[in-house]
C-alpha cells in the first residue's frame, strides 16, 4: 500500500544516475587541473611538463624564496594596488548600492546597468579604453594608472554584494530606529552598518582577490611596471625555471582561496541577519 508513496518519495530524494554522473564529472573537470599545478611544483624536471614527473623535490620553494629576487617587487606592487583599489571600491560601491536600493527614480535601470558594464564588457575593452584615454591626455603610466583600472571593476563586485544585502534590509528596523529618536547618522551607525558589514567585508575580499589576480586590464595600464600576474604571464611565455612558476602559482591559489572562503562564510551567515525575513 505504501509502494506508491515510496515511489513518489524516492523520485524526489534520489537523482537519476546519468545526471549524477554528469554533474560529478563536470565538477571534477573544474578541479583536477588545479591539483596538477600543485603536483608540478614538486617535480625535479624543470624544462618540460613531463608526466608523470621523473622525481619529486621540495627544493623549488627554497629557490623561489632565496634565489629569485625578481618575484618580490611584483608581489609588493600587486598587494599595494589590490589594497588601494579595494578601499576605493568599498566606498564607491557601497554608496552606489545604498543609493540605488533606497529609491526608485527615472534612469535607475540605466545607471545600474552602467555599474555592471565594466564586467559585462570584455576586460580588453576596459584596458584599451583606459590606454586610449591616457594616450589622449598624455598621462604617464604609474601605480595610479593601474589602480584606476582596478578600482573600476572592483566597484562592481562590492556593489553586487552590497545591493543584495541592502535589498534584504528590513525597512521596519530603520523606521523603529527613527521612531526611537535616532537621527539618520545614528541609524546608519547602529542599525544599518551592523547589518551590511559582513556583506561589505565579503565584497571587499572578493574585490581584493580579483585585483590581485587581474592581468587583462593591467597589461594595458601598467606600462613597464610588473604586477605578480604580469610576472607570471612573462614566465609562461618565456619560462626560466618552470617549477618556480608553479610554486608562485600555488601561493596565488592560497592567497585567493582564503578571501573566497571567508566571503562565502560571511555572506552565508548574513542570511540569518535580523529582520532579513520580510
Amino acid at each position, binding site marked *: 500500500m505504501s509502494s506508491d508513496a515510496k515511489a513518489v518519495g524516492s523520485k524526489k530524494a534520489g537523482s537519476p544516475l546519468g545526471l549524477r554522473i554528469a554533474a560529478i564529472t563536470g565538477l571534477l573537470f573544474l578541479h583536477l587541473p588545479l591539483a596538477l599545478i600543485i603536483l608540478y611544483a614538486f617535480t625535479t624536471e624543470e624544462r618540460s611538463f613531463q608526466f608523470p614527473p621523473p622525481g619529486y623535490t621540495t627544493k623549488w620553494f627554497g629557490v623561489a624564496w632565496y634565489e629569485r629576487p625578481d618575484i618580490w617587487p611584483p608581489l609588493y606592487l600587486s598587494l599595494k594596488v589590490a589594497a588601494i583599489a579595494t578601499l576605493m571600491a568599498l566606498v564607491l560601491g557601497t554608496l552606489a548600492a545604498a543609493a540605488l536600493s533606497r529609491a526608485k527614480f527615472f534612469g535607475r535601470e540605466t545607471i545600474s546597468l552602467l555599474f555592471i558594464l565594466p564586467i559585462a*564588457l570584455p*576586460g580588453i575593452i576596459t584596458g584599451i579604453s583606459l590606454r*586610449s584615454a591616457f594616450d589622449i591626455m598624455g598621462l604617464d603610466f604609474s601605480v595610479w594608472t593601474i589602480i584606476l583600472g582596478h578600482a573600476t571593476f572592483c566597484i562592481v563586485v562590492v556593489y553586487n554584494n552590497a545591493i543584495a544585502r541592502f535589498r534584504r534590509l528590513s525597512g521596519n528596523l530603520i523606521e523603529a530606529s527613527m521612531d526611537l529618536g535616532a537621527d539618520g*547618522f545614528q541609524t546608519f551607525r547602529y542599525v544599518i552598518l551592523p547589518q551590511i558589514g559582513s556583506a561589505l567585508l565579503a565584497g571587499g575580499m572578493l574585490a581584493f582577490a580579483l585585483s590581485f589576480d587581474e592581468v587583462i586590464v593591467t597589461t594595458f595600464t601598467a606600462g613597464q611596471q610588473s604586477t605578480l*600576474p604580469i610576472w607570471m604571464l612573462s614566465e609562461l611565455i618565456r619560462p626560466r625555471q618552470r617549477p618556480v612558476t608553479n610554486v608562485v602559482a600555488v601561493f596565488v591559489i592560497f592567497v585567493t582561496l582564503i578571501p573566497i572562503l571567508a566571503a562565502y562564510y560571511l555572506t552565508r551567515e548574513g542570511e540569518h541577519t535580523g529582520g532579513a525575513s520580510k
Partner: protein
Amino acid sequence: MTTATLERPRTSLLTALSDTFFRQPKLLTLLLLLPPLLWIGVVYVGSLFALLLQSFYSLDDFSGLVNHQFTLSTYAQLFEEANLQIILRTVLMAALVTLASAIIAFPIAYYAARYARGWTKALFYLAVMMPLWSSYLVKVYAWKLILAKEGILTWMAEGLHLKWLLDGILALPVIGGPSLSFSYIGTFLVFVYVWIPYMILPTQAALERVPSNYLEAAADLGADPRQTFNTVIFPLALPGIIAGSIFTFSLTLGDYIIPQIVGNSRLMIGQAVYTLQGTAGNIPLAAAFAVVPMAIMGVYLWMAKRMGAFDVL
C-alpha cells in the same frame, strides 16, 4: 511633559543635516549616487569615448605617428581580408565555447538546484565558486601542463592504448596541430574550462526559481520526463542560460591571453588589439578592433534583455 521631549530643540549640525535628508530623501539619494556615478562616468565611460575617438584617427604609414584627424579609413581597414578573418574566427570560437559551456553546465546546475540539499548544496556552491574566483592565469597555466606534448593527456592516451586516436585528432585539418597546446582544440578547451562557472551560476539561479509544483502539474497532466524538460524546465531555465552566455561570449570575444598561451599562431580579436597597441603603436586600429566586440555585445545585451535574462543576474 510628553510634549517637552517631542519638541526638544535639535541644535546639532549633524542632526539638522539628518533632518534635511529625512525631509528630502531625493537629495540624499543624489549625494550618495554622485561620487560613484562620477567615477564610472568619468573614468569608465570617459575612456570608452576616448576609445571611440581614437578609432576615428589613423596611423600615418610613413611617420608611424597617429594622425589626429577624423577619418573612417581605420574602420575600412577592418574589412581587409586578414582582419575580417580574425573577427569571424573569434566570433565562431565564442559561439562554440558558449554552446559547449551551456551543455556541460546544465547537469551541474540542475543537480545543484534540484537535488543537492544541506551540506551537498554548500559543497556544490563552493565547488563552483572556487574555480570561478581562483586565479585566471593559474587556470590557464594548468591547461598548458595538461595539454603539453609530454603532459598528462598524452600519458593517459598511451596508457589506454588510444594514442592513435589522439594522433588522429591532431592530424585533423584546421582544428588539429603539432600538439594539443598548439591547436584550436586546446584553445577551445581552455576557454570552456575558464568561463564555465559563469554559466553554471545563472543557470542554477534560474532553475531554482522553477516551482516544483509546476513539475508535478506537468507529470499529473501526463507529460513524460522528456516532455516536462522540453516544455517546462528548459523554457524556464533559458533566461539563466542566456545570462550565462553573456559572460562566456563576451569574455571569449575579448580574451588575448588564452589563445596566446594555448593555441596556434592565428590571431583572435584580443590578440590583434594587444599587438597593435603595443609594439606596432597603432592605437587607432587597435581601438577600431575593440569596437567590434563592443558592438557585438551591445546587440547581444539588447537581445538578452528582451528575453528576460537580466532578472536572473
